[in-house]
């Protein structure tokens, strides 16, 4: 591991003032410390923000404010999250292990890097790690990489489960930084790779996430489901966070679908949502909407299985949510 110096920030503004070239913020470290050990991340300066007083979960009118340093396990176990935003609790609980959830923070979960095998292997080219070197995944091991919104430069996926639920809940990410405070609505924090895959998010250098705010829970029922290669402690092949509300006459009045494991960002299936809202709450309608969404997919030879998987997951989940 490359040498670095370490400082513990005393406040968010102290953290931001310590930020400069070669600086990275340290949360729980479950991803960053591993990346430093692998040589993928090589900061000169580490500013520890894990003990900032940003560890509260508190209602603000009909909203819920979640501090950036709240541990994933505390988020999932919080009584208000469990009762009002069960999908978020479920999503967090399907991620990682008990040990990792105890360490990982909310902000760190959002800012974790892709688990693309080429990104994590410094002996291989990778446009995300070293811009302009190429993407071996397109010809190589891409079985768990992106089918939607990818580019010729990068087919990485964002690995977070929590972020998928936050995208479906229309969460806001509160940020402070050298240029002041900002609020970024999910799923807009994460970007698609385009020709700049080295940028996972829209954050500028030095910006620090301070909180995630959830609007009032959406009407209707919600579910988070995750399909993976083993039953626990594995990343999603495809996951879904879905919200559905159906009127007495069988017409869908609210539908939100966010997909994980399929793109460089949590993927809000807006085409499918538009097709479903205002129509009948039937499996046939869900299937047509899922197919319309996935029409824009560009699978690679070894990840095309994700398309029927995603289609079936959308249909089955919405059917389960239909009263």
């Amino acid at each position, binding site marked *: *591991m490359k*040498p*670095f*110096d*370490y400082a*513990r920030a005393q406040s968010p503004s102290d953290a931001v003032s310590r930020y400069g070239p070669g600086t990275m913020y*340290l949360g*729980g*470290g*479950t991803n960053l*410390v*591993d990346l*430093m*050990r692998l040589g993928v991340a090589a900061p*000169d300066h*580490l500013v*520890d923000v*894990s003990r900032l007083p940003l560890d509260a979960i508190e209602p603000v009118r009909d909203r819920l404010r979640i501090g950036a340093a709240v541990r994933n*396990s505390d988020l*999932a*176990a919080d009584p208000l999250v*469990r*009762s009002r935003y*069960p999908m978020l*609790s*479920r999503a967090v*609980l*399907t991620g*990682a*292990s*008990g*040990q*990792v959830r*105890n*360490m990982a923070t909310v902000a760190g979960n959002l800012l974790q890097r892709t688990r693309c095998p080429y990104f994590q292997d410094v002996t291989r080219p990778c446009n995300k790690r070293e811009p302009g070197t190429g993407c071996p995944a397109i010809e190589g091991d891409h079985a768990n990489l992106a089918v939607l919104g990818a580019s010729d430069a990068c087919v990485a996926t964002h690995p977070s489960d929590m972020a998928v639920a936050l995208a479906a809940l229309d969460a806001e990410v509160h940020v402070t930084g050298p240029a002041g405070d900002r609020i970024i609505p999910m799923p807009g924090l994460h970007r698609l790779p385009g020709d700049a895959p080295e940028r996972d998010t829209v954050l500028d250098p030095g910006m620090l996430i301070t909180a995630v705010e959830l609007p009032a829970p959406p009407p209707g029922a919600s579910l988070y489901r995750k399909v993976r290669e083993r*039953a*626990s*402690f594995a990343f999603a092949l495809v996951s879904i966070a879905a919200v559905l509300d159906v009127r007495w006459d069988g017409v869908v009045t609210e539908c939100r679908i966010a997909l994980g494991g399929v793109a460089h960002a949590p993927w809000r299936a807006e085409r499918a949502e538009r097709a479903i809202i205002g129509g009948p709450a039937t499996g046939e309608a869900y299937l047509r909407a899922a197919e319309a969404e996935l029409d824009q997919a560009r699978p690679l030879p070894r990840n095309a299985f994700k398309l029927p998987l995603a289609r079936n997951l959308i249909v089955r989940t919405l059917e389960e949510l239909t009263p």
Partner: protein
Amino acid sequence: MDITEQVGVQVDVQVNGVPHTVAVDPRISLLDLLRERLGLTGSKKGCDHGQCGACTVLIDGRRANSCLALAVAVDGCEITTVEGLASGEELHPLQAAFIEHDAFQCGYCTPGQLCSAVGMLGEPGPSAVTADLLLDPGLTPEEIRERMSGNLCRCGAYPGIVAAIGEVAP
């Protein structure tokens, strides 16, 4: 600050009730601090990537992968390792249950399994397999398996591990 000036960063930790003040390179993990500097070799280095759980310890009472924690980041914390579970000659109930249920073969994952189980038994709330999020479920074998999924056992002693934890679970 110049990096060479920081090679010895002072860290105060209490390990199994004993206070230590050590100067560490900011790069070393809590696991390496425990094993290489404090001579506590019970915690094991398996994968060194947070995937196997052999290095699991309790940090301020909560289970964590000590390979992923920088030693400098646990300054001021209380650490419990497998060496700190027993009271003198009296084994922790989980240690006794592991022996009773033959919950290991080679034993390499056992310190991590034990610390993880101690931490897990104190954790509130549901797991990914809990049917009703609003109820605290009993620790059924299914619940134990899910909650212990961060600890791998290459010998495949899982049936004994689940039985041992199930015996001690409230």
